[in-house]
């Protein structure tokens, strides 16, 4: 279970996260939406201590992430999968070596077992034939799939997606979101998905949290958020140019 309590973060006097509180139950898949620059990715980075809060705390299974000693933090990070917006694949390694990297470094599996697992994961994301390619030879959608395969090969219990579908065409977006949905259902992962893909994400998450002006403006189910009376949510979800959100 992930609990974020009264989280605050500012940069040079500019408050990005003012007072963020959010709960994600074990096995729950929550979408985090909000304007560009509202601090969604920043919030996600606090969950794995890539950032430390100015105030407030993040608890994962009851333990404060900011106070974890190094070994405990490494153990937590081993349980968490994080899919970056850019994919963050190692450009000097092939697709196969990228996916095999965590297995080679963190497990004692032999090369044949690693090969079997990697090809299995690449097959799951539909990229078995791309094993010899380098990241620079892949399309945006393929990069995201490889990044997902590299994350899943470690069998994480928690998965964090940081805008994994940004900049992709609608067909690829839907295929990747369906892939996330099937992974979530198959492995019963706890997940947070930062995304702008509305309404595409409505079908795959249990809850939607909207981050606005440094606070969680609402946490609702996809059904209730569609017809929310909150003018901020209504404007954002329906993409209305007029409303309380000023650009």
């Amino acid at each position: 279970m992930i609990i974020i309590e009264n989280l605050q973060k500012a940069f040079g006097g500019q408050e990005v996260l003012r007072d963020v509180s959010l709960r994600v139950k074990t096995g729950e898949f929550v979408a985090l939406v909000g304007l560009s620059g509202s601090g969604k990715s920043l919030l996600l980075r606090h969950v794995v201590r890539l950032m430390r809060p100015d105030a407030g705390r993040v608890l994962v299974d009851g333990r404060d992430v900011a106070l974890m000693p190094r070994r405990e933090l490494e153990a937590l990070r081993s349980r968490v999968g994080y899919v970056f917006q850019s994919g963050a694949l190692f450009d000097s390694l092939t697709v196969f070596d990228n996916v095999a990297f965590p297995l080679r470094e963190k497990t004692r599996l032999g090369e044949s077992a690693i090969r079997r697992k990697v090809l299995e994961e690449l097959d799951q994301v539909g990229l078995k034939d791309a094993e010899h390619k380098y990241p620079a030879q892949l399309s945006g959608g393929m990069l995201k799939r490889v990044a997902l395969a590299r994350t899943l090969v470690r069998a994480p219990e928690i998965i964090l997606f940081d805008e994994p579908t940004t900049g992709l065409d609608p067909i690829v977006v839907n295929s990747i979101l369906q892939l996330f949905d099937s992974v979530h259902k198959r492995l019963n992962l706890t997940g947070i998905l930062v995304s702008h893909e509305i309404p595409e994400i409505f079908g795959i998450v249990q809850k939607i949290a909207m981050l606005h002006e440094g606070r969680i403006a609402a946490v609702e189910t996809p059904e209730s958020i569609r017809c929310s009376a909150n003018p901020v949510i209504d404007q954002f979800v329906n993409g209305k140019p007029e409303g309380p959100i000023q650009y």
Partner: protein
Amino acid sequence: MIETLILWGTWGMQRVARLGKCTLFFGEAVGCCLTPPLKWDRVLKQIWFIGWKSMPVICLTAAFTGMVLALQGHPTLRRVGSEAFLGPLVALSLIRELGPVLAALMVTGRAGSSITAQIGIMRINDQIDAIQLMGLNPMRYLVVPNLIAFVVAMPLLAAVFDVVAIFGGYLLGVRVLGLNAGAYFGEMNNYVVIHDILNGFYKSMCFGALIACVCCYKGFNSRFGAEGVSVATTQAVVDASVLVLVWDYLLTALVN
């Protein structure tokens, strides 16, 4: 007046803080070098990259340095009737000072800049964060192999530099200026002692550690975007080069 003092004070404090951070970074890297697991495949790859791939530029620079030393030294020595000492002049200048320093400066430009840029790009593309999030320490993958490789490769490169430069001095002094080959090498044999060679060896190792530390630190702390990596690379080359010269002075003063 007070405002100027505050500005200078702030500038000084920032420099001290940066130096402190860089020292802590170096300390952590050394700590990782002394504790397993070490990534020996990456260490060998970096020795090949830093050492072997720098050979052409080292040999070229060394040959011309040796020739210039002979060309400048010969007329001066002839004025006092000591042309026979051209060999020791070239050899001692190179082995004690010029070999380690010039090799370090050339390697900073060729390999150090490349390492800063590579680590900087990994930083801005979240690749370093990705390593951390696999529960691994990026220091072991990106800094330790470079640190060991620099410390191993620098004395070897300085030795190659010395040999090629002495040969360059021989070509010019003996083949062009007509000095006796026996005198060139014989006097060198009389004046160069093991202490001089060890002095150059230790200096090269220190320079290697220094370049690795500065270049990796700058890459690790690169700011975002292409400009951030570009600034980090420039700073790494300038800072490492200046530090090599300052450190050379301090070591020379200490040894002498």
